[in-house]
């Protein structure tokens, strides 16, 4: 177990360092001279040199890379060229919005997905299964931002059930905060819910057909009990993996969802930075997103080994 966790942590660190290298050289591939971009076209050569020295661009690449790593560890990601604010504080205000949105979307997707998947398994060959399969297929095929536009039109503007845009801090006003995030979270969770529905159904059908479940049923255990004790437990293992794998898609989806519902999250920060060529922010946002991805997947891997002892045994052996 310890060895398994340590290996995973080591892998996470390697992945992060490699990602850092990709980002570092990616930023250096950007066209144009960052010093020129910051100082403007009329800047004197002396001024440009001063900015270059300030940014450390006159030093060897290796030194620059080490400094880059050092600044990450120190938590200093520079200042935005667009707003002049420290990038860390800009991320600190926008990241929670996205995290709440993503967390809410995952909860919605897991609840809806498990419910629909179990429904399909319970009523095999009948209309609930057909309906569940159809909803899952639609969920996989629909572009979520389009669904968002339609939802705003129907549920927010015409019926007035939900606000069309805006964000209320979840911690300072939980009820209103959750209410404002409901529509965006449902929209963001759509495709994840579809994937979970399909997987839950598949793994439930598989588990319920195994000998140990038949044995448990023969022993006199009621169907619901078997379902929750064996069926759901096995589905959870698959579920944890899916959420980990779908995280990248969820982050991409969050960017477009934030755009549609005008949420002040990290997606909005990213887009604003891209369109104003605010390189320090782009670099920092990419870094934060990859780091979150790696951290969450590390957590998923460890969680996975807790739920499924088989995994840590087999991985330890290998």
């Amino acid at each position, binding site marked *: 177990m310890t060895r398994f966790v340590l290996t995973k942590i080591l892998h996470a660190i390697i992945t992060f360092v490699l990602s850092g290298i990709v980002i570092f050289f990616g930023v250096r591939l950007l066209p144009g001279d960052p010093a020129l971009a910051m100082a403007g076209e009329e800047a004197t050569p002396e001024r440009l040199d001063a900015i270059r020295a300030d940014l450390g661009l006159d030093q060897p690449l290796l030194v620059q890379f080490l400094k880059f790593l050092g600044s990450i560890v120190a938590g200093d990601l520079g200042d935005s060229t667009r707003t002049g604010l420290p990038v860390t504080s800009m991320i600190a205000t926008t990241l929670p919005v996205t995290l709440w949105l993503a967390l809410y979307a995952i909860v919605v997707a897991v609840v809806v997905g498990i419910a629909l998947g179990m429904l399909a398994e319970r009523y095999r060959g009948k209309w609930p299964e057909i309906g569940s399969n159809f909803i899952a297929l639609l969920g996989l095929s629909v572009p979520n931002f389009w669904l968002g536009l339609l939802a705003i039109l129907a549920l927010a503007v015409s019926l007035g059930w939900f606000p069309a845009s805006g964000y209320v801090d979840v911690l300072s006003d939980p009820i209103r905060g959750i209410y404002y995030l409901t529509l965006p979270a449902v929209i963001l969770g759509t495709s994840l819910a579809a994937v979970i529905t399909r997987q839950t159904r598949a793994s439930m059908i598989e588990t319920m057909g195994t000998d140990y479940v038949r044995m448990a049923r023969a022993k006199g255990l009621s169907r619901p009990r078997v379902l929750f004790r064996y069926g759901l437990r096995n589905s959870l293992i698959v579920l944890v993996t899916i959420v980990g794998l779908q995280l990248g898609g969820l982050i991409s989806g969050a960017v477009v969802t934030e755009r549609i519902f005008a949420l002040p999250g990290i997606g909005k920060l990213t*887009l604003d930075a*891209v369109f104003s060529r605010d390189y320090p922010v782009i670099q920092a946002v990419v870094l934060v997103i990859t780091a979150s991805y790696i951290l969450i997947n590390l957590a998923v891997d460890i969680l996975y080994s807790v739920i499924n002892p088989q995994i840590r045994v087999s991985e330890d052996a290998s």
Partner: protein
Amino acid sequence: MSTPIVTNTDKSTQGLAPEFHASSNRALWLLRSILSTPMGIIGSVMVVIVLIIGIFAPLIAPYGFAQTNFEVPFQVPGTIGYVFGTDDLGRDILSRLAFGVRASLQVGLLAVALAVVVGTPLGLLAGYFRGLDSVISRLTDVTLAFPFLIIAVGLAAISGPSLSNAAIALGISQVPTMIRVVRGETMRLKSADFVKAAIATDASKARILGMHILPNAASAVIVQATVILPTAVIGESMLSFLGLGIQPPSPSLGIMLSDAQQYIFRAPSTALFPGLAILFICLAFNLFGDALRDALDPNSKKGH
């Protein structure tokens, strides 16, 4: 890096590779199998419709995709001459849809091609050589840590947003799953009797990978490709919607939706059709992909 891929269907391998059927018979059999279910028929018909629209877009479109007519803005669907109506600039929506579907397919197919061309050889190597496995796995992890939108942001920042950058971003983000699929198949096939037999006859590693493992892993690659295509189509529309993909005046279903968002209350139908078009393309390939998977792997029927 040399890629030991040989897609030559040598008759002599047949005895060694019982899973591998003659290709033309197999294609016929597959098609019959796909068309044996209602979902398979619907999916196949939809795929054919999408392909026809994509290939013959210039013939289907009554107008140019960027041809404005300021005298007829916001025509409602059903107007004579403009079946699906017009947008704010009086551009014909039918024409823009046809070219948009074409662009979606282009990006989707490019992304699939990239994922297959890069992912398949890496998956074969990772599955066959244990030493390479951990190196390739770390590279896969790094790629997975960059969501496609972030890759697209990076490419857009480096060389400007475009159709090809969108396709590259979407393709790269699908490489890891392709590697995993092929790696899994390779590991499974490596212990199959016909591969062991080939190893025993002292066949070269390139020959084993290319002639014995690759043809049998091909069905998994094809199934994965049908999963990647709709994902890439949605991804393209998302990127273009955000201004990170195809650039106006080039047509894209995502750009149409982003334009429509501005006057959604005045002309909701402008937002309806592009979304329905994306939905149609993705339903087509998802249905077809499901039927294909069931046909290739009868065991999956009980599951999915």
